[in-house]
């Protein structure tokens, strides 16, 4: 697996690995049983007449199935629900934390365009920072992404930060992450989106908080000069608050 540079990615990794332990044991049991049966009960042996429907046999089958369900599946279910409730689906807590950054992403064939609200905190205004292909975020703060697409379905995927969410035309989806480490990480498109799907690469650049503040101030100052009131295509941003209660 790619190196985990996020604060909460371990929750996913840990569940993956504990499930792997279960899976490996079951695989070995299955393989062992099959091999042993074939070797021990070969065709020169007499078959033992048994319909396998004695109460004990049935109880054993049901018991083993139930036990597997409660341990392996139960572990996965509880772990997933918890991780979702506490972290990955808990946008309210992420939004409330000081220093949280909001970014609107417009996915389109075949690139990622990102929009930051700028100093006024409102989207679709002249101080918005708009970047193409590169998304710059601070280290150690929640970064909340709202995603749209303006053509076909794309999948916003940052493997190093254990984040994946589709961008669907006609609706706004959201996902959040918090980077533990600084550095450059690849953004990939997860959903087949046409001929150049494989080239729909972006870069997520994680900077230390101070550096990021500096970058944001400079970028926002620049963006005012690039702002064109009459360019309606360029104002694809939306009012964040209107989508505060997203699914």
């Amino acid at each position, binding site marked *: *697996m790619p190196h985990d540079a996020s604060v909460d990615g371990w*929750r996913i990794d840990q569940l*993956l690995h504990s499930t792997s332990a279960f899976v490996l044991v079951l*695989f070995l049991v*299955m*393989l062992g*049983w*099959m091999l042993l049966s*074939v070797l021990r*009960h*070969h*065709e*020169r*042996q007499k*078959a*033992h*007449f048994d*319909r*396998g*429907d004695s109460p004990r046999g*049935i109880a054993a*089958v049901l018991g083993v*199935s*139930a036990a597997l*369900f409660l341990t*392996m*599946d139960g572990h*996965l279910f509880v*772990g*997933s629900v918890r*991780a*979702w409730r506490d972290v*990955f689906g808990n946008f309210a807590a992420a939004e409330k934390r000081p220093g949280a950054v909001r970014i609107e992403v417009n996915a*389109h064939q075949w690139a990622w365009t990102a929009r930051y609200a700028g100093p006024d905190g409102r989207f679709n205004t002249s101080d918005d920072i708009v970047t193409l292909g590169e998304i710059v975020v601070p280290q150690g703060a929640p970064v909340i992404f709202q995603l*749209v697409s*303006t*053509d*076909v*379905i794309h*999948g916003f995927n940052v*493997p190093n930060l254990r984040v*994946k*969410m589709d961008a*669907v*035309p*006609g*609706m706004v989806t959201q996902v959040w992450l918090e980077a533990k480490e600084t550095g450059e990480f*690849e953004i*990939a498109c*997860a*959903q*087949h989106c*046409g*001929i150049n*799907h*494989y080239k729909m*690469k972006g870069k997520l650049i994680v900077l230390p908080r101070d550096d990021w503040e500096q970058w944001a101030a400079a970028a926002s100052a620049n963006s005012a000069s690039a702002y064109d009131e009459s360019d309606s*295509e360029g104002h*694809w941003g939306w009012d964040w608050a209107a989508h505060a209660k997203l*699914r």
Partner: protein
Amino acid sequence: MKPSSLRHLFSLDHKLIAKQFLFSGLLFLFVGGILAMMIRWQWAFPGSPVPLLGPLLLRGSGGAISPATYTTIFTMHGLIMIFFAITPILIGGFGTYCIPLLIGARSLAFPFLSAASFWTFALSLVLVVLSFFGELGGASAGWTSYPPLSTRIGTPGGGQTLMTAAIFITGLSTVMGGINQVTTVIRCRAPGMTYLRMPLTVWGLWLTAILNVLFVPVLCAAAFLLLLDRVSGTQFFVAGASAVNGGGDPILFQHLFWIFGHPEVYILILPAWGMVGDLLSFFSRKPASWYRGTVYAMCAVTMLSALVYGHHMFVSGMSPLLGQGFMLLTLIISVPAEVMFLNWLRTLWRGSIHLRSPMLFALGTIFVFGVGGLSGTYLGATTTDVYLHDTLFVVGHFHLTMAAASFLGSLAAIHFWFPKMFGRLMDERLARAHFAITLVLITLVFSGQLVAGFAGQGRRLFDPYQYDFLRHLRPLNRWTSIGAFLLFGGQLLFVYNFFHSLYAGELAGPNPWRVGTLEWTVASPPPIHNFDVVPTVLRGPHELADPQVLTALGRDWIGQAEALPGEASASEPGAANPVLA
């Protein structure tokens, strides 16, 4: 063409229609396999000319695969394998062939409908072939055909339109076949053939047919609406922000598609489950362990199959609450699957295991299904799925469960019923060699996909090595591809064995495997009316190694309609046909 051969071609005999389905399925399995080899070539040696096929098929790009061609190749590989290879082999072929013979019927309930089903299917095959030559390219939106990509916005080519129509038409064919098979099982069972005396094969095929009748119409509806979006400017699935201003909803298509799509994976594997359940018993020479439990488990999976589809859409912006519900239901479906699996394993225990070719392929089926099923655990949960969604891990998972298991299941079925269909046995030594090569390589190839996916490799990437974090996977992919090429080459053994045995195989006789289900009581191949006298069934399908039978008849098996000395052979018809045994 002579009138007699025309009559032959448009026969209403279910056994002949089944062979028509089987041969078309095998032909398109070959086409789908070629496409798979091209995908594997691209991942192993991106951009280099494809040997043999390149100069033949890809002249425009110097023999190499272009990104546009690549999207068509993987789209067509998926669609062909699912709808035009596995479906006709297992459901059209063995469903049509086995159901009447195994329940003691002289034909399907509606002979004309089964012929209509095949010829409708043949029409869809023509569209599939034509779609490769569509103006502006073939179908390329992926087998899932998610809009808006699958509308004219993403894929303006004529090929996509033709394929959408082909799916609609093949759906009609499947529904016709399904109605026929459901009715046949309900209405045409021989006297005494109660539901709980039916071979597991019939259970698997029947449940499949029920799912087909219920859910393929949903696919047909989705394909039809998509077709309207493509050709007549409607906007069912076209929504958009600035670039396209449709009023539809692309997610609606995903719901329709997966309400069909998840039952579909059970549609493709249930026939193989049933067959494997019978074969494990036949070749262990003992009854299937807890037959009723297996039947109930298969019914439970069938019922749950439509309630879990949401796990395909965990990252589509679905509400987390809905996601949790689907996660729970998805994990619950593992319980009946475990019951069935444990019953298979218990059937083997203390048997007298005859490792003939059908048994080998049956064991191979449960092995790859076991590996694939275990890999599915990760994908059923929202949190772990976030990382693995849309990676090769998913691809490896469904290839193990759906492709490898139903492929090996089909091979088990072919080796088992070949003598009944054609009157001759397949060569056992060639079959064993073919089995060994196939099982080892198919496991390695699809496990290679699991590993690559766990490392993060996304699916449907023309050149995965565009990404730095995937670059180190090139050797893994290359080795996996080499395994796939050898796997493909190894199938030549099967092709040779199949056609050679067709003409020169050892004569089989009516019952080469010494088992008791009804199809083995008639000649091989069976007469056109199947049974001279409709049998009266007295017992279940797996009466093997019964000490009573051993003493009375001196052999370890007894026919389902065969009376023991002193046993009443034909009880009154009224009493012999209660609904449950």
